[in-house]
């Protein structure tokens, strides 16, 4: 039987991998994927708490459904903006996004 | 009629500025006429007030008061009511008159310049701010007017200044902007503490003064008072351009046009002294007493340091700026003494320095207009082509170095008399400043007016008829205070003695 701590640790590891990837990867697609990882870490957390938490309740599962849906919407918009960016600049590399800086 | 006179005085200049907004841009003489009326009327009203002023009374006179802003829940569940309230007492009356005289003469002294309409608009806004500072009875209102002087000054220096105008305008802004931070922190902290005593939150000066006077020591601790006074004092040091925060003043005087120099040296710079008297001595007398030695030391440092620096200045305007700083050092010394003579000397010195600065900067401006320079080395033998101007310059310089019979003398006598009682050694060092003043002023005078007249200065015109007005008026006032000091003394005596009794009790 897996314990709450193990689930939460999995979530934390996933979250950190996602955060690391989102902040360091060069390709925007990978960055978007990393963000999805972070959101999935949240889902694992929510489901763990909904099932094994101090006060288990259905709310966590409902929250997960919302998170998933919204994550999909966010990703869709992200890809759309990425296409527009690619058309303008012919690159999807984070390092090339340097038209504006101080 | 009497009821709204103060409002009229404060807002007539602003009204003038508004009217100017609708005057066509091309015309040069119209703006000056409007500005003259908008500063002359307050001068007349100030005269009326002076005539009706009862100097035997301690409290505020001609007060006006209306509620203005209600801030709910400001103190526990009670509201803070900010009032629009104005009034004059013996302390602010001299400052009011000084402002009225100098700002009006400043308009007279203004020569033809480009963008004249805008110049007068900013000038009049500045004048409103100055009047407001001295007449406000509400700390919030005071602060508002103080900030109101910043913006016009920025433009007045920045547009019509000398070759380093942009930089100096910004410097002026940042220095005085930071100074007002300290003032605001101190004001609001005072208001909250006063509210803890009375249970009612207000920013009314009188109410706060009363609350502090009768506050039990456990509600308003002396360490709180000292902390607040230090914050306030730091701000005053910047406002008054005391060493080591003085660098904005010489720069400003060097870059600003003549009339602005007059107003800065004559009035604007004196706001800090007014705050020191009104808030420092008036509300926090025990804190002033606690820090008296520190204040006196800073005062003496300024007297001597500024005088020494003045000796090596090549530019008249910078020299006068340092001379003014040196004079204001005497004010600090007088305040530190915390006795009748010292405080009175402080007020005298502030007013006297205001009049003298106004006169001196006017004269130097007039000379600059003719010769194109204010560098002492480049001038020489001015007494031949322009004897009148040179003569007045000599009178002003003598007044400034403290010749008996003029305002500078009586101010220094009073201040030092007070100071010697409290700090004999420091005061003795301070008197060095008087000697130094004689040295640098006479040296500069001699270089400027005597000796051979250089070729390009030959045949320059002397004072015009319109220029006599500022010169004569200012000299007359300086001599009047010098030979008949009670004209000023009667005004301030009652207020000062009420402060002194509070220290004693």
């Amino acid at each position, binding site marked *: 039987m897996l314990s709450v701590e193990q689930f939460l640790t999995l979530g934390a590891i996933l979250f950190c991998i996602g955060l690391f990837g989102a902040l360091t990867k060069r390709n925007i697609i990978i*960055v978007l994927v990393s963000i999805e990882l972070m959101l999935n870490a*949240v889902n694992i957390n929510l489901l763990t*708490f909904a099932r094994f938490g101090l*006060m288990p309740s259905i*709310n966590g599962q409902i929250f997960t459904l919302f998170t998933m849906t919204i994550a999909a919407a*966010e990703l869709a*918009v992200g890809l759309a903006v990425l296409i527009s*960016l690619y058309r303008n600049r012919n690159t999807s590399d984070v390092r090339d996004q340097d038209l504006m800086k101080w | 009629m009497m009821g709204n006179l103060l409002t009229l005085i404060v807002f007539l200049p602003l009204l003038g500025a508004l009217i100017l907004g609708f005057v066509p841009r091309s015309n040069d003489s119209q703006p000056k006429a409007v500005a003259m009326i908008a500063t002359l009327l307050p001068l007349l009203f100030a005269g009326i007030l002076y005539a009706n002023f009862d100097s035997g009374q301690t409290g505020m006179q001609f007060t006006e008061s209306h509620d*203005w802003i209600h801030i*709910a829940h400001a103190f526990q569940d009670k509201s803070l009511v900010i009032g629009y309230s104005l009034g004059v007492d013996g302390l602010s009356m001299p400052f009011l008159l000084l402002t009225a005289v100098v700002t009006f003469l400043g308009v007279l002294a203004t020569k033809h310049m480009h963008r004249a309409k805008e110049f007068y608009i900013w000038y009049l806004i500045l004048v409103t701010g100055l009047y407001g500072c001295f007449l406000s009875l509400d700390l919030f209102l005071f602060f508002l007017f103080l900030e109101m002087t910043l913006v016009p000054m920025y433009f007045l220096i920045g547009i019509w200044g000398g070759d380093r105008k942009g930089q100096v305008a910004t410097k002026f802004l940042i220095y005085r902007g930071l100074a007002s931070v300290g003032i605001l922190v101190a004001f609001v902290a005072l208001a909250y503490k006063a509210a803890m005593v009375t249970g009612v939150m207000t920013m009314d000066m009188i109410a706060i003064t009363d609350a502090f006077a009768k506050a039990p020591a456990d509600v308003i601790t002396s360490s709180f008072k000292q902390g607040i006074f230090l914050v306030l004092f730091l701000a005053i040091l910047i406002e008054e351009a005391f060493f080591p925060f003085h660098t904005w003043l010489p720069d400003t005087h060097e870059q600003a046009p003549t009339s602005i120099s007059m107003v800065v040296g004559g009035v604007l710079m004196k706001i800090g002294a007014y705050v020191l008297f009104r808030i420092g001595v008036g509300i926090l007398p025990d804190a002033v007493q606690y820090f008296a030695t520190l204040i006196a030391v800073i005062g003496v440092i300024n007297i001597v340091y500024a005088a020494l620096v003045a000796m090596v200045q090549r530019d008249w305007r910078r020299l006068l700026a340092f001379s003014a700083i040196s004079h204001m050092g005497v004010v600090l010394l007088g305040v530190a003494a915390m006795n009748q003579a010292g405080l009175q000397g402080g007020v005298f010195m502030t007013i006297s320095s205001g009049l003298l600065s106004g006169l001196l900067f006017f004269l130097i401006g007039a000379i600059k207009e003719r010769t194109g320079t204010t560098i002492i080395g480049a001038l020489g033998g001015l007494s031949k082509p322009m004897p009148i101007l040179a003569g007045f310059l000599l009178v002003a310089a003598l007044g400034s170095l403290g010749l008996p019979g003029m305002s500078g003398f009586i101010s220094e006598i009073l201040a030092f008399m007070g100071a010697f009682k409290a700090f004999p050694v420091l005061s003795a060092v301070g008197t060095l400043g008087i000697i130094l003043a004689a040295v640098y002023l006479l040296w500069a005078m001699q270089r400027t007016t005597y000796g051979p007249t250089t070729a390009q200065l030959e045949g320059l015109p002397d004072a015009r008829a319109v220029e006599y007005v500022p010169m004569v008026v200012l000299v007359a006032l300086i001599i009047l205070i010098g030979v008949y000091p009670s004209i000023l003394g009667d005004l301030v005596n009652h207020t000062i003695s009420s402060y002194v009794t509070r220290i004693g009790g």
Partner: protein
Amino acid sequence: MNGINGVTQLAFSDVWRVMAPEILLVLGGFLILVLDLFMNKESSRRLSPQLGILFLIAAFVMTIRNFGLVSDQTAGGTGELLNLSNMLYVLDDFGNVFKLLFTAGTALVLLMSIDFFKQNPEVKVAEYTYLMLFATTGAMVMASSLDLITLFVGLELLSISSYVLVAMRRNHAKSAEGGMKYLVIGSIASAMALYGMSFLYGVTGQTNLAYGAQTVIQMWLQFKPLLTLAFLLMLIGFGVKVSLVPFHQWSPDTYEGAPNPVTAFLAVVSKAAGFALILRTFLWGFSGVFGDVYIYLVILAALTMVVGNVAALSQKNIKRLLAYSSVAQAGYLLLPLAVLGKGKSIDNIWLALGQTSFYLVAYLFMTMGAFAVLTVVTRQAGNETLEAFRGLWKRAPFLAVSMAVFVLSMAGMPLTAGFIGKFYIFLGTINTEMYWLGGLLFATSAIAFYYYFGVLKAMFLKDSAVQSHDKIQVPVSLTVTIAIGLIGTLALGIFPDLLMKFLNGLHWFGQ
């Protein structure tokens, strides 16, 4: 209206009572969407923004009606808020004030946009308009919801719409780049906030803030690190939205890349929504333990004020300058909440809410006005640097004077709304005896004089680089925006009681 834990029937009349403005905006959005399908391109372009403004005004009016509902409910004396589904969604004056701000702000943005559409024929007007309406709805949800799920949905509705709006100009590389940056940072922020929410949920077993708050107090001693982590993660997530330092890096780029009206939207409506969310979440969820966490808010506020103002000093691009200035303003806006934690000052909550609202209203007027002026001036000059403003007093006195008022208001000069707003916030810091924080508020403002007066210097002190003395043509829609901004800024500066009186009479959380 509803039992605490019973199954409740939702009637439309209940929903309408609580959510009328939101419903109106959603309907409006869909109406524009559908009309766009059936109308020809020209009339859709012309009609959509006007319809949008109309619906925003309707929502504004409904919000005003809601004030009456709230005071009736309070007078009724049951002590319960008007709410839906067990405090999932509430109607109180806190939400109402923010809704007024959002609808008014978006209406002004759409007004400014009319000119933007004329200049950029490639922009799809209907799409733009309904995205604005949906984004505003999202903001409203953020201000009125008491449930983490709904709050999150509102946040994302606002955010996702904003991402699209920023990247709207397809042939504009900066626009796409700004949009992408905003999207990436914004999504990371959302994930952070969600991760924090998941812990809050884990400890309380509730997604509802109203019920969860009690549990937070009970669990605080036992789960302090975990709850603090939740608080910090949420703070980071929300902090990105309102661009608190050090989470502000996206804002200058996004502000520069976005079209001017959208920048104004981000600066005002989106930021106000972020603050509504912050206040709602922390004041409800963490009010019982606020004394233990407020210090993080204080640090962030201080950092934001300092860094925002210092970074603005070196900016040459006027939009980036305003971006950093708006970062700094976020610091000022966080102060009222931040100082609430000290001692027993949570009692000052009504003061804090008044302060935030007043400053936001002032900020709305001055920012909208500034962006409207900026639009005209930069277009005429063809660039967005400070140089574009050179000699403006000669070319367009009205624009120059208006811009001067807006800039002075941002700098906090007297007789403008910005000054009263800052003073009001300042009172709170002194009241809690955090003198240094109050000093910092005005000291950073004094430093800010340097760059704000740089704008004034360019306008009044310098002569125009181009010797064109032809007057600048100001489109009617922008003139109206500028005039509203000007009147608002000056009126609140000289007669602050106009707004103060109104704010004083509110039942913020229904009390």
